[in-house]
């Protein structure tokens, strides 16, 4: 078995880039990642990639080069990027291939993410009566979470405030203007207790990564980052997921709990050793819940950590250092790989104005999405 390293990273800036297709953004990211590793597309032995709404990743070869490589499309909702990465990890770890590329990209129109209940096996009544609304789910989920753990809702504004503050320090972010907790709390209520500025927006962007056998990593870069664990899980009976006309009375952990525990176990690294973390923050409540579900802190401990600045860039456990989904938006196919891109930047010491001080050694990423899936990675220098 080979260990796996990331030797090239590339990104197309997130946000709304009029006149540039999602595919063009993906090609840009791929070329940047190849350039970063000092390689050409003809050096790639495999590709995995996907987008939700911007086309098939395997068609990118018409632009990148018709080299005959196996390029497999991945379609796994918000975990598309994470799933592509896990597939690449397995391809290298198993010895099937030595080097390849993963690409995640997307381009959503304003107010995207209308979903047909039939795609989820749910009757038309669910959409017609106004229950097929993702923003509702996040409100319902965090409402219960705040109740269960005795957390005051003020923490939700504090999390969004941190996201915009970090985004303002990240030149690749979409939202680069700081907003105060008071402004965030006073914004229109979308789904109680979550206001407009606590949610991310559908966006655009692309990320590509070049991965190879760890023992060859230094051929391509002086600063490889090692993928020590990459795990994916789907929901169990009793978890609380989006588009659920009913929930089981017996409760079960979210897929995040299992995916993160498995990634840490594979890496032989504990959550207490993490120096920088990116967790899915579709809205503030998601960051709140995921901090604990991933094992980075205890349930109910988040208020204290936020108030004490622990999850700030300069804190002991920096979370969503690039501004997360809230400041970067959500191009579904690209988000999971954005987290890995940001973590590689941080571990290389290349994050500039939003660099975590103190020479971080261990990074962690977590994506979560419909219909109850999570993918996590543990990365080290």
């Amino acid at each position, binding site marked *: 078995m080979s260990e796996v390293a990331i030797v090239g990273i590339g990104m197309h800036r997130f946000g709304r880039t009029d006149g540039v297709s999602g595919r063009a953004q993906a090609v840009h990211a791929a070329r940047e990642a190849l350039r970063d590793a000092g390689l050409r597309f003809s050096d790639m032995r495999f590709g995995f990639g996907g987008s939700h709404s911007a086309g098939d990743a395997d068609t990118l070869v018409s632009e990148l080069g018709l080299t005959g490589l196996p390029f497999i499309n991945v379609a796994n909702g918000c975990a598309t990027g994470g799933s592509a990465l896990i597939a690449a990890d397995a391809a290298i770890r198993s010895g099937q291939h030595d080097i390849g590329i993963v690409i995640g990209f997307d381009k959503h129109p304003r107010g995207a993410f209308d979903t047909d209940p039939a795609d989820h096996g749910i009757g*038309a009544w669910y*959409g017609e009566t*106004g229950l097929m609304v993702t923003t509702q789910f996040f409100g319902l989920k965090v409402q219960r979470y705040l109740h269960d753990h005795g957390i005051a809702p003020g923490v939700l504004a504090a999390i969004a405030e941190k996201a915009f503050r970090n985004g303002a320090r990240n030149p690749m972010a979409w939202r680069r203007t700081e907003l105060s907790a008071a402004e965030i709390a006073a914004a229109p209520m979308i*789904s*109680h207790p979550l206001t407009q500025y606590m949610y991310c927006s559908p966006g655009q962007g692309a990320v590509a990564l070049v991965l190879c056998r760890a023992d060859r990593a230094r051929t391509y870069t002086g600063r490889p980052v090692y993928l020590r664990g990459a795990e994916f899980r789907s929901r169990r009976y009793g978890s609380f997921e989006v588009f659920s006309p009913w929930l089981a009375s017996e409760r079960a952990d979210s897929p995040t709990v299992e995916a993160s525990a498995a990634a840490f176990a594979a890496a032989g690294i504990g959550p207490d050793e993490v120096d920088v973390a990116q967790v899915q923050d579709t809205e503030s409540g998601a960051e709140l819940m995921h901090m604990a579900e991933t094992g980075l802190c205890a349930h109910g401990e988040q208020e204290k950590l936020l108030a004490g600045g622990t999850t700030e860039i300069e804190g002991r456990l920096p979370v969503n250092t690039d501004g997360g989904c809230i400041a970067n938006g959500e191009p579904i196919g690209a988000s999971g790989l954005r987290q890995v891109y940001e973590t590689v930047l941080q571990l290389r010491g290349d994050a500039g104005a939003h660099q975590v001080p103190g020479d971080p050694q261990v990074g962690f990423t977590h994506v979560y999405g419909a219909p109850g899936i999570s993918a996590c990675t543990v990365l080290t220098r």
Partner: protein
Amino acid sequence: MIRLVDESLFTRTPDGVALLGSRCADCSAYTFPRQGGCPRCTGSAMADVPLSRTGTLWSWTVQGFRPKPPYCGSERYEPYGVGYVELPGQLIVEARLTETDPERLAIGMPMVLELVPFRDDLDGVPVHTFAFVAGSSDV
């Protein structure tokens, strides 16, 4: 005869209209709406069962904007709340709530099922769906 959004969701009981779910003969798990396979034990011995008309509020929110299609509700039935209501010994069902004031909603409060209009059809006839209202019985 009251017009319903989807007749297959409902059943008539002596206490009034109830939601129609499934119960697994092997492991006693419930689902709503009805389905043929059991998500708990993976078996396929599901039988129709009327669900409890009363429960307690398990979580809630208020829909703060008019959803896009496939939502087709009429403006005069807005805004609406959304909640999960725990039906004791059965399951936790998602439903519209008639209450939209956050000050008057609290986890744990007793709720009872009611049919409410959510849209008018082209002839102005109201179409009903299920919702929960605060209260412990049909008064």
